[in-house]
Each structure stands twice: as C-alpha cells, then as structure tokens.
C-alpha cells in the first residue's frame, strides 16, 4: 500500500514538472535564428577572417560569399595568396576551383576543416538545413536569458557532428555555440558578437571562434558589404566555377 502511494506521488510530481516546461519548438527557433543571422535568403557579403595566435594577429583571409536559399553557396577567395580560387557548395557536394588546375576539383568534407575558421564556417551558415535541434534548457549568459539547443548533424555535408547553441530567449538571436566532431572532441567555441541592419533585415556582423585544442588561438570573422540580392541559379553551377 505504501509503495503504491509512493509511486503515485512520484508520478504526479513528474507530470507536474513536465507541464511546467515551456513548450518550445527547437527546430522553429533554429530557423528563426538562421534568419536573424543571415538576413535574407539570397545575399552577397564580404567576410574578413583574422586569425590570432596568443592575441597577436597572424593571418588574414578575405572572401566574397554569395548565398542562395539553404543549400547554395559560392565563395570567392580574395586574399593575395588565395585569389583566383572559388568554392562552391551545393547541398552536400563541394568543389574548389584553383587557378593553377584550371578546373573545379571535388573535395571531401574533411578537406573543409582547415584553420580556426574553416571553409565550412564560411560557407554553411543555415544550421536548420544541416542540423536537427532539441531544446535542452534555459540559462543566462551574462545578463542574457538564452534557450540552449543541441544540434545534431543530419546531413553528411554538415561541418560539425554536434553543436550546443545558445539563442537569446526574446528573439532567437545567436549568442554563443560549442562545436563537436564525430569523435566527441570539443573543437571550437564561438560567440556571436555584433549584428547590423540592412534594408530592415538583421544580419551577423562579427563572430569570434576560439580553438578548444590550441587554447591561445582564435579567429574573428567580420561581415561587411552585406546586400540582399537575387542571384542567378547558374552562378551555382560547378561547370561555371572558373569565372567570377
């Protein structure tokens, strides 16, 4: 009789606790955060990535990124030693064009991961397309109340295996993220530092990525010259990658 009573009380407590959890659609939150981060579904933007070693500027890379929809990204490399290169992502498929080979070369997902900020960080910014989201909890980051999501890769083209993602509770604006590989290794952390406005749309203007393996290394990604623009489909064809 006592055991039955104990089970009833425990069951009631669990039911009450479940009822108290906010009803959060994690995938919808993720889609909202992508819109806030990217601004428009079709746009061009310039990205400058500055790498720092022990807080001293080390390397700088410049890119012109054209994004159309969720799965089409065209990246032009603009730094002196990389100019003439192009990167194309179509869903899970990726090519790089190098001027000395004069043809698009198919690259594997592992070839994308170089440096603190990888090609994947530049070219794949629609997390709702690449990841399934689950709501974990609500917690504060400084003074900002955040919803914490766990993102699991659902495509082979996803840059990371898992992401922990903090979104501002009031508007799903990304605040910070932790990135993990298939092995479970915690490889990077990121903070989404600043946002700008263009044509009534909000978009990310600055992001810092910290290397969790080499603790004194980090990269700052700065977004500028943002422009929402209709882009032709043929720009995202692997056969046309040799021209800008």
């Amino acid at each position, binding site marked *: 009789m006592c055991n039955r009573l104990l089970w009833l009380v425990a069951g009631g407590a669990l039911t009450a606790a479940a009822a108290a959890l906010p009803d959060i659609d994690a995938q919808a939150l993720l889609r909202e955060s992508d819109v806030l981060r990217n601004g428009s579904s079709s746009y061009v933007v310039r990205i400058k990535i500055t790498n720092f070693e022990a807080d001293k500027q080390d390397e700088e890379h410049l890119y012109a990124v054209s994004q159309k929809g969720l799965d089409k990204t065209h990246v032009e490399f603009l730094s*002196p030693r990389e100019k003439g290169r192009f990167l194309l992502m179509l869903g899970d498929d990726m*090519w790089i064009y190098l001027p000395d*080979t004069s043809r698009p070369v198919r690259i*594997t997902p592992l070839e994308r991961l170089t440096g603190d900020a990888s090609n994947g960080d530049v070219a794949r910014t629609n997390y709702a397309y690449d990841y399934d989201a689950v709501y974990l909890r609500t917690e504060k980051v400084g003074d900002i109340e955040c919803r914490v999501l766990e993102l699991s890769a659902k495509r082979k083209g996803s840059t990371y295996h898992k992401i922990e993602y903090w979104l501002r509770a009031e508007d799903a604006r990304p605040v910070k993220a932790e990135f993990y590989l298939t092995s479970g290794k915690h490889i990077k952390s990121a903070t989404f530092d600043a946002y700008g406005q263009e044509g009534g749309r909000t978009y990310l203007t600055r992001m810092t990525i910290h290397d969790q*393996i080499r603790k004194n290394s980090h990269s700052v990604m700065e977004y500028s010259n943002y422009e929402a623009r209709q882009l032709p489909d043929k720009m995202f064809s692997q056969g046309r990658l*040799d021209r800008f």
Partner: protein
Amino acid sequence: MRSIIIFLLSAAFGWSQSDNSEMRYSVSLTDEGEFAAGLRVPGADTGNLLLLEPTFAYKSSDFWRFSTSLAAVTTTQGETQSQLRVRETYFGIDAGDLDLTIGKRLLRWGTGYAFTVTGILDPPRNPTDPTDRLNLNEGREMATADWVSGRNDVTVAWASAGLFGKRQPGMLDTAAIRYNVLVDGFDTSVIVAHEGSSTFSGANFTRVFGEAVELHGEFGWSDTTGAGALIGGKYTTRSGVTAIAEFYTPASAERQQYGFVRVGKSRLRERPGWKEWDVTLSLVTNLGDGSRIAVLDAGRRFGKHFYAYTHTESPSGKRNASEFGAIPYSALASIGVTFQL
C-alpha cells in the same frame, strides 16, 4: 627579344564596384633557379627563370565580361630567351541561361589529376607537374556556348589548333559538346568531339563517399586511337593529409599503363611556424617499362605576399630503354620565390 621586367609597385589586388560591375586584377613575380645533377646531354646544368604574370578580369552589370592572363617568361640557361605567353584572353556575354565566350581560354573537362582521357580541349597534362605550378599552360582559341539549367550544363565548343600564332604540333581544330549533370552526388559528364577526321566519345565522373573518400574516373574511345581509361581516388585523413592514386591507360597502339600516387598536406601543422608550410610527394610510374619519377614539392608562405618553394624531380629506370629512365638527368632541383599582389 630582350624583355625588361617592370615591377608594378602600384598594382594592388582589389576591386571596384559600380552598380553590379566588378573588376579583379593581380600581379605575381617569380624567380626560380634550377640545377640538374648528372646531366647527360650537352648544355648548362644550371638555369634561371623569371616570370611575371599579370591577370585582369572585368564584369559589367552581369551582362558581359572580359578576362586576360599573361605570362612574361625570361629563361637563362647558357643563353637568355624571353617570351610573352597569352594564357587566356576572352570576351564573354551572359544571356540568361546562356553564356557565350570567344577568345583564348583554358578549359579542362578531364577529372584526373595527373592524366586525362576525356580532356580533349585540356592543355597537355604533365604528370610530374599536374597543377602547372608556374601557371605556364596556355589556352586554345575557341568559341563556347554554355547553357545551364538547374544541375544540367551543356557546353558546345569549337577550338582552333592555332588561329593567330603557329599551329601547335599534333593539335587539330576540334568541335565538341559536353553534357554535365549532378545526380545523386555523381558529377558526370558525357563528351562527344570531332577532331580533324576523327571522332571521340567519352564520359567521366567524380563522387564523394562519406567524409574522406573521393572517386573519379574517365573513359573514352576514338575511332583512330582506340579506348583509354582512367580510375582514381582521393583519401583525406582527419589530420588533413590527402592521398591521391590513379591508374591510367591512354588510347594508343602501345597500350601503355601508368600509375600515379601523391601524398601531401597544406598547413603542415596548425601551429605558428608550421601552418605556413605545404609539402607534397608524388610518384609517377610507367607500369610497362618500370621506370618512374619521384617529385617532392615543399613551400612556405611568408606574410601575405611571399611564397618560397623547392621542387625536386628524380627519375629512374633503364637509360634509353624506358620512358623516365631516358630523362637526361639524375635529379632536377628548383628553388624559387614568388611575390604576389
């Protein structure tokens, strides 16, 4: 012709934008010294190469574009010779789903790294230098029409064997059509061409499997030279090392067979002082006569604009009775530096 190399101090890489027009320009200057060990033919065993490469591209309002890429080369090996090569100069019009170009263009349809069967318009591929490290390849004078719709791309091309300059030996006027489509991860092309009096047909593909494996292949058949085939793959390790292997049999009466292996890594280690390094080791083998040539490339970036490198080739095989054994030196070492704006 004695060329005076003018170093363009004011040419900085950048772009200007007016409406949707854009411009890209750059200049690189390379100085490379070369030494041949065990030279078996008369001539100097040392040499020097000075290479100035300006490029310029302009796109006006997503409608027309112009692109040019030149190479001014001065080589000294005993005597000094200079040459101006036009790598590419072409004019293009963007008409909706159709792109039209006319001029001299570098076009590569083959998917192989060291060899190709279906690259009928490609510049000659040197297996010991598949990436054309000095960018000396020249395009062909051609007119092309490209139609792109979704994942489908049809290209029609007519290429001359040499309109304005000397006709290249062995090259023929070529008319070709390529259909390229991306289906289920397979990037596939079917090519038909008419070259002189001979007809060629072929196909190639690339596909990525999982995180680390890429496979590519080419097959072609010509009514004058027969069938050729290439199969190859690339594997990338988690540490970023890339290994490529290819097996190739060209369309020829001799039915030669070749193997190619390359292992390399860019950004040797993600640590200061190491990530500026790139290292690649290649081996090309004639499987018929057993001769081979090993190639080692190593380079380091200095700052934003400088790149220093070394390139070493070492052939082996029966002298005068094998393809690579007949190369008249036992080793060739090149050391160079490139400044790029």
